């Protein structure tokens, strides 16, 4: 089968600049929408899944498996676990056992501000840096105990609705009726910890007037999960449950499934509208060339050759829009902080997301061209040659 030259498809795009603009913008919007939806879903999934280390096990209060914030266990659990479970990873005599308090508290940027946002405050000890190796201090230093100091994750200001400057090192934040000086910023790429505030465990317990901790996170060395689980199950007096950290965050991923479904559904519906818009545009473009289609057939071009040329034309327009969307997505969306109830995460423009966006845009171009092409080509050649 002999095809029409690609030049024919390319130059046909220039016949109506308005129509071309509509096709390009339509494909761009659909691709951008799919890119955003995918970046959102994948960013959320990655931050949740990335938050849980495969080697970590969380000991938390029985019955609080769905939320560490609701968990309360004795502060002594950390030392008891370290002493009872053999094979916990250690380094230079320091066991990878991190007692932590997780509290969602309203935080403000000024003492007299009434509007606040709930932020997860994590009370930590030095062991927290061992069990959460993703955390890197990128500005300032770690907070010192007894000085009401805090350290902020890279996206914490987004979670609080503050500017980055308002949450920079040297400034103060307010929660639990006192001012907390920001002494450091940390980055924990692709984890929910990025949206948290970290402060020394004892300072938070004093401020919150609590004598219990939320959980103990420990990193397995030679030990297995079953060892930790056995500890939790045999120490009935401590009312503990053991969960692999990855499973805990896996539950959160499942919890957000309806949100992800809604996002895909919305993106799908809007993309469908875009498809109908594209169909209309391409139909208008092709129907105005019915006589030309008849002429090409009379020369000897097969219907398939003409259909391929029209598909090329539509695909080129869609590809332009899709590429613009991909570049815009990379420049504007990648890493963009999004606030949700559990914290904040960055939109993620990874290869899968880019492929999805590109695929959606090109599919729009292809599907958008097919029905109008079929309709125009179905016309008998003599009738097409008589068309106005």
């Amino acid at each position: 089968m002999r095809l029409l030259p690609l030049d024919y498809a390319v130059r046909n795009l220039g016949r109506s600049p308005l129509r071309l603009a509509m096709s390009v913008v339509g494909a761009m919007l659909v691709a951008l929408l799919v890119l955003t939806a995918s970046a959102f879903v994948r960013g959320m999934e990655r931050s949740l899944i990335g938050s849980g280390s495969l080697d970590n096990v969380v000991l938390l209060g029985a019955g609080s498996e769905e939320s560490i914030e609701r968990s309360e266990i004795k502060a002594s659990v950390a030392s008891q676990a370290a002493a009872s479970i053999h094979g916990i990873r250690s380094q230079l005599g320091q066991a990878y056992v991190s007692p932590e308090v997780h509290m969602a508290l309203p935080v403000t940027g000024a003492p007299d501000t009434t509007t606040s946002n709930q932020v997860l405050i994590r009370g930590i000890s030095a062991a927290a840096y061992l069990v959460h190796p993703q955390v890197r201090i990128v500005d300032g230093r770690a907070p010192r105990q007894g000085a009401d100091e805090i350290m902020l994750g890279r996206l914490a200001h987004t979670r609080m609705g503050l500017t980055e400057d308002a949450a920079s090192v040297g400034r103060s934040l307010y929660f639990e009726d006192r001012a907390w000086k920001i002494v450091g910023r940390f980055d924990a790429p692709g984890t929910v910890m990025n949206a948290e505030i970290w402060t020394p465990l004892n300072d938070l317990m004093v401020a919150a007037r609590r004598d219990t901790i939320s959980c103990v996170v420990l990193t397995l060395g030679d030990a297995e999960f079953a060892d930790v689980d056995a500890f939790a199950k045999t120490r009935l007096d401590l009312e503990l449950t053991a969960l692999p950290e990855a499973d805990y965050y896996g539950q959160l991923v499942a919890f957000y499934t309806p949100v992800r479904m809604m996002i895909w559904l919305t993106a799908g519906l809007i993309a469908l509208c875009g498809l109908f818009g594209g169909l209309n545009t391409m139909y208008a473009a092709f129907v105005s060339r019915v006589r030309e289609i008849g002429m090409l057939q009379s020369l000897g071009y097969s219907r398939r050759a003409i259909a391929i040329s029209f598909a090329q034309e539509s695909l080129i327009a869609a590809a332009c829009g899709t590429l613009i969307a991909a570049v815009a997505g990379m420049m504007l969306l990648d890493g963009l902080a999004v606030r949700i109830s559990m914290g904040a995460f960055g939109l993620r423009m990874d290869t899968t997301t880019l492929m999805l966006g590109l695929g959606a845009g090109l599919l729009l171009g292809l599907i958008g061209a097919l029905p109008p092409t079929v309709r125009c080509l179905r016309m008998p050649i003599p009738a097409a040659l008589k068309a106005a």
Partner: protein
Amino acid sequence: MALIECRELTKEYRRGENVIRPLQELDLEVEAGAFLALMGPSGSGKTTLLNLIAGIDQPTRGELIIDGEDVGKLSRSRLAAWRADYIGYVFQLYNLVPVLTAYENVELPLLLHPIKRRERHERVATALELVGLADRHDHYPRQLSGGQEQRVAIARAIVADPRIIVADEPTGDLDKPAAHAIMNLLTRLNQELGKTMIMVTHDAHTAEYAARTLHLDKGRLVESGAHIAAGAAMEAAS
């Protein structure tokens, strides 16, 4: 042996309950190298006959044998390939592709043949030379007059060296001088290149350029007349 043979050629359309027969049991033979004009009132079936011979429509009944092949029985894809080999079509409204230059418009039929780029270039140049538009090869249709557009369309019709050129009211959209130039050109193609020419026209003066005129009415052949010579019309017109 005739190049084109029509035997009881019939074309029917169904429009609801009604059956319309623009062509009814027509018998016709056209020799190779003939210049035939088809005349008749609107709805007489002349364009239908032209379209059948051009292979862009298929008969309902009867035989249409061109160069020994019953084209009425070819599949759609084979018919498309057959058209590329046998037919050059000249339209009343030129039907040039507006986004392609004169050169590229003429080149279109050649792209259907396995011809090297260099030979393609030579053949397009020759065709444009033949219609007197070699210097306008890079002009777009909008930059040409109606007569020039039709000459480009004629170059496109002959460039692949088809055996038959069909022309549907080739001068219908042109003023008298341009129409005269186009008819002279078609006559030259017939006489000098030996192309078989079949032309539909309403205009008796245009029909005089043809060596033979067929009159159709209600899908039937009603009269057939032969002119003395096509060259006579050329001389008379000039």
